[in-house]
């Protein structure tokens, strides 16, 4: 019963958003909170019920669509407002509503007493709605509704404290950089329609699996489509060259960072590529580009993360880096492994963000790592749960991140990309380093908080309320356990891959299964290498920030250019400003507006007018009022006419 109507789960948050958005200013805070959380809870419940019924279906029936109404129809172009539930969207919708619900609960505590409470919850609900549309859409254009819709919510929530200049700037930057990607996505959709005369997934995938049954060798239309869609993904999922908005997006409230800028929205690009696996698997050039962009982003962001002072910035770069891993997976054709990492990352990164939010709250909005320290005794729940998240992201065996990251690295190696694999291992080491650094600086060592010494009446930080700690505990549980659904082949069954298989059935299957697929021994050895490197990262962090805290500073002083290169994020913001933003403004102002519009065009317009005037001044002298002059003119005219008729045309 429930299964046919799975789509109603998108309605609840929409209703919540509309009610809070329109009437929220008049509601007392508990009403707003209750309304907002309950709608998402209902969505999550419907998602769970759907899942329960979904797994009871035979595997070949696990694709359901529900048609609501025709959205845009013009000639042979049709985009329906209909939804698709298949294993991939099932996984995504569970993450979106599940993690979304936990973060709503967390927000109750985090946002308590803030002004604009209704606004916050309305936007958050709207986000869940848009994200659900993105994930459940059954065609590319409807996906684009969600795609831009989540971008809008991100804009609204980053700019939540709009009185701050920085928040406004960050919000605008996020939207615009996303828009640049979106244009790529949109042109990709145009090309899809031109090629397949449809934008509906299943029709397109069916067509592509028939028309492109043999892998093409040259860069053709599929290469163009996939590359254009990928441009959209680099915006939404913060990859090179459009990633620069995500660190700034940390201006938003921390639960927003956890939900939108870590667990769900930024993974939309990964989801989109996994969804389009039938197209991507037939475009090897694009896949290679994606793999290179992914691992480069992962490496670059991990490097930058090692020197950030702001706790949220570290996590933001970490997110970019982990997304890079996911794109690496996509790029080597390991779509399942990428989705797996998306899933585990949603848990542990949301956990890390929410944990950092708890720390920030306890320290009255202090975000500088170097003003923290020794918090373990004040914030025990946050301390233990965050370490779970840290161990997961660092890839410590038995934690979820270990399985998913290892799956990606192994698939990369098995596909014959040893260089990419090596870079991936380096990133694993860096990850272990920056996350341990973050944990050591926050919870261990001495207390460096300035606020402690100012003799405030309530100096010791306290753990916030249950609504903050409960989501932490639940997410910690998932960070520990989520990995077991995707065991490596030498340990058992990869249940996630099996579950997802129907979603990837149109994928190109011409590639011979790699001979390495079952080389268990190699896989184990490679895993051990990764672990060793990660341990090295951990040990270095321990050495720098626990044993000899002055070493890090000395290193920074020894290599100032390197340090500032990393601190300033490779100057990419400055380069964009210098190369694009500045010139565009100057050219628009001086050449186009003041030059072209005011001088050239209006100059011509006014010039014509004054020319007319000047001539009029001369011509008007004829009307002098003297009768004898008029008589002369008449005579002259008559003579001219006579002259014409007698001599020129008789």
């Amino acid at each position, binding site marked *: 019963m429930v299964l046919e109507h799975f789509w109603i789960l998108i309605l609840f948050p929409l209703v919540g958003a509309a009610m809070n958005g329109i009437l929220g*200013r008049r509601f007392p805070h508990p009403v707003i909170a209750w309304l907002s959380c309950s709608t998402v809870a209902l969505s999550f419940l419907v998602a769970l019920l759907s899942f329960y019924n979904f797994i009871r279906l035979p595997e070949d029936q696990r694709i359901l669509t529900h048609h609501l*109404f*025709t*959205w*845009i*129809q*013009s*000639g042979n*172009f049709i985009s329906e*407002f209909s939804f698709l539930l298949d294993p991939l969207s099932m996984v995504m919708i569970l993450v979106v509503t599940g993690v979304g619900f936990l973060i709503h609960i967390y927000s109750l505590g985090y946002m308590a007493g803030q002004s604009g409470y209704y606004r916050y919850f309305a936007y958050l609900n709207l986000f869940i709605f848009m994200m659900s549309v993105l994930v459940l859409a059954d065609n590319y*254009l409807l996906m*684009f*509704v969600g*795609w*831009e*819709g989540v971008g*809008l919510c991100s*804009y609204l929530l980053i*700019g939540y404290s*709009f*009185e*701050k*200049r920085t*928040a*406004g*700037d960050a*919000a*605008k930057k996020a*939207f*615009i950089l996303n*828009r*640049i990607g*979106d*244009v790529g996505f*949109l*042109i990709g*959709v*145009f*090309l899809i*329609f*031109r090629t397949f005369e449809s934008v509906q997934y299943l029709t397109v995938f069916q067509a592509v699996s028939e028309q492109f049954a043999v892998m093409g060798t040259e860069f053709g239309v599929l290469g163009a489509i996939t590359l254009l869609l990928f441009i959209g993904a680099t915006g939404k999922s913060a990859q090179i060259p459009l990633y620069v908005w995500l660190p700034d997006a940390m201006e938003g409230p921390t639960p927003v960072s956890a939900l939108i800028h870590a667990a769900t929205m930024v993974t939309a690009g990964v989801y989109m590529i996994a969804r389009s696996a039938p197209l991507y698997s037939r475009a090897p050039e694009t896949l290679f580009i994606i793999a290179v962009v992914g691992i480069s982003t992962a490496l670059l962001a991990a490097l930058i993360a090692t020197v950030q002072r702001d706790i949220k910035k570290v996590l933001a770069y970490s997110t970019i880096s982990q997304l890079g891993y996911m794109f690496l997976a996509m790029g080597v054709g390991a779509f399942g492994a990428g989705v797996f990492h998306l899933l585990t990352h949603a848990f542990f990164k949301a956990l890390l963000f929410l944990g950092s939010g708890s720390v920030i709250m306890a320290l009255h909005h202090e975000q500088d790592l170097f003003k923290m320290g020794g918090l373990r005794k004040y914030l025990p729940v946050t301390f233990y749960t965050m370490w779970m998240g840290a161990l997961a992201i660092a890839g410590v065996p038995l934690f979820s991140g270990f399985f998913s990251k290892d799956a990606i690295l192994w698939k990369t190696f098995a596909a014959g990309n040893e260089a990419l694999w090596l870079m991936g291992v380096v990133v694993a080491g860096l990850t272990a380093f920056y996350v341990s650094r973050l944990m050591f600086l926050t919870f261990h060592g001495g207390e460096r908080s300035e606020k402690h010494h100012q003799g405030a009446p309530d100096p010791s930080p306290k753990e916030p309320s249950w609504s903050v700690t409960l989501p932490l505990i639940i997410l910690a549980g998932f960070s520990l356990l989520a990995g077991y659904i995707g065991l490596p082949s030498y340990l058992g069954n990869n249940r996630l891959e099996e579950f997802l298989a129907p979603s990837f059935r149109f994928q190109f299957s011409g590639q011979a299964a790699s001979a390495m697929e079952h080389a268990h021994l190699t896989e184990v050895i490679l895993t051990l290498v990764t672990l060793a490197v990660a341990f090295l990262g951990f040990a270095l962090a321990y050495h720098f920030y626990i044993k000899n805290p002055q070493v890090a500073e000395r290193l920074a002083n020894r290599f100032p250019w390197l340090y500032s290169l990393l601190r300033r994020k490779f100057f990419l913001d400055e380069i964009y400003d210098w190369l694009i933003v500045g010139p*565009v*403004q100057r*050219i*628009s*102002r001086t050449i*186009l*507006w003041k030059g*072209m*519009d005011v001088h050239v*065009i*209006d100059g011509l*317009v006014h010039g014509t*007018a004054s020319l007319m005037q000047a001539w009029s001044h001369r011509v008007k002298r004829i009307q002098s009022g003297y009768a004898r002059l008029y008589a002369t003119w008449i005579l002259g005219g008559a003579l001219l006419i006579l002259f014409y008729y007698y001599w020129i045309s008789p």
Partner: protein
Amino acid sequence: MFGTELQLTLLLLIPGFGALVIAFVPSRKIHLLRGTSLFFTSLTFLYSLLFFTHFDPGAETMQFVQKVPWLNVGVLHIHYHVGMDGISLFLVILTTFLMPLTILASWGIEKKVRPYMFFMLLLEVGMIGVFVSLDLILFYIFWEITLIPMYFLIGVWGGKRRVYAAVKFFIYTMAGSLLMLAAILTLYFFNEAQNFDLVEITQRLSLNQIILPFPVELLLFLAFFLAFAVKVPIFPFHTWLPDAHVEAPTAASVILAGVMLKMGTYGLLRFCLPMFPSASAALAPAISLLAIVGIIYGALVALVQTDVKKLVAYSSVSHMGFVVLGIFAFNLQSIEGATFQMLSHGLSTGALFLLVGMLYDRRHTHLIQDFGGLAHVMPRLAAFFMFIMLSSIGLPGLNGFVGEFLILQGTFLEHAGRAAFAASGIVLSAIYMLWVYQRVFMGAVQNDQNRTLTDLNFRETVILVPIVLLVVWMGLHPSTFLRRMDTSVQKVVDRIEQVREPQIYRVEYRGH
């Protein structure tokens, strides 16, 4: 009355009668004047909805037609010929929909209310007339009629440089339309039937009963095109627009952007393409280039404006560029998208001017630097502005997206490069709109004069809510509109195809 021949004429008569009534109301009775205007414009709107409900989407011919001989002077046969199809239907409704809202937005007008309201109603007659005329002379008369009230609305009730702006507007437009008049008369000499009937001329042209040598067709096309290009405005004929908008009172700006610019693109679609298809096809690349330049240029210049109203004016140049691009891609999706975009732009830009006007009523300035942090003092106005801004930058799910998407998708099918360049306008529109929103509404309140501003009152909310509802409706269920445009747009496309196909055959023949 509905169902008789007079049904469409009545649509012209209601506001016309309203204008007459206004003329007899004592000028001191401001409230009565306002009320009367509101009554007649609302009545016109409600009446126009009947055309929506009675419209037959499948009909190939003009609907609600009335045709009577009007002036028979010797060999001149001028008819009073009016009718509607799927293209004009919604433009008429857009006009009648915006009019009551602009009257409501004119509550701030306190000097010379009687002539103001008189001109508003006269303007409505002219605009509806433009969209329903099917005789070239009749069309020309209505076209010119709209100029006069607008000239006075800007010149009398405008801002500081109102006279300059009004004269510039008048002469710019007049220069274009005189060329059109010359072309109409030239066309007459090629027409053995010796009339000005658009439907008949188009039909005779397509049956080769009227033969225009290509150079003549080209010249005639250019004459019509220039008249319309000034109105749209197409780059580089746009410099009257920013001045006119900045000086015009709010209501005039709304009508100018909301309806009168569409008279230009409507003219292209109604006259240029069906009458001069070969010339249209031949010049399409050049015009598309102007359209793309307009899209990017308008957006870039909008970006650096210091005056909100001027910014919105330049954004119109950019948005209308999309419409022209769509029209000259000669594709069902692109032209349907262009027609849809005309409506969308009318709504969202009309609403933007209304909002800017509401700001002006409170602060008596348009300068961006005088604002800042207004979302603190006017949360409702800020929310409405945000919503309309999203519609204007084409957020999917709202009206602006549908038009832009169809234009670009249709254009892409024919000319991928054009669509790709034009698509950059989507990024630029987000940049200038978000930036101005940030500078006006976000941040802290810096200027003390802004601290005491009052939020939207009931009247202003009543103006904005219908627009918002329509924005959502058009965005989520565009079929309501697109379905009724299909047949009429297909006819235009077929007409172009008619002259393009032989060329394809020629190429094939040469190939063998």
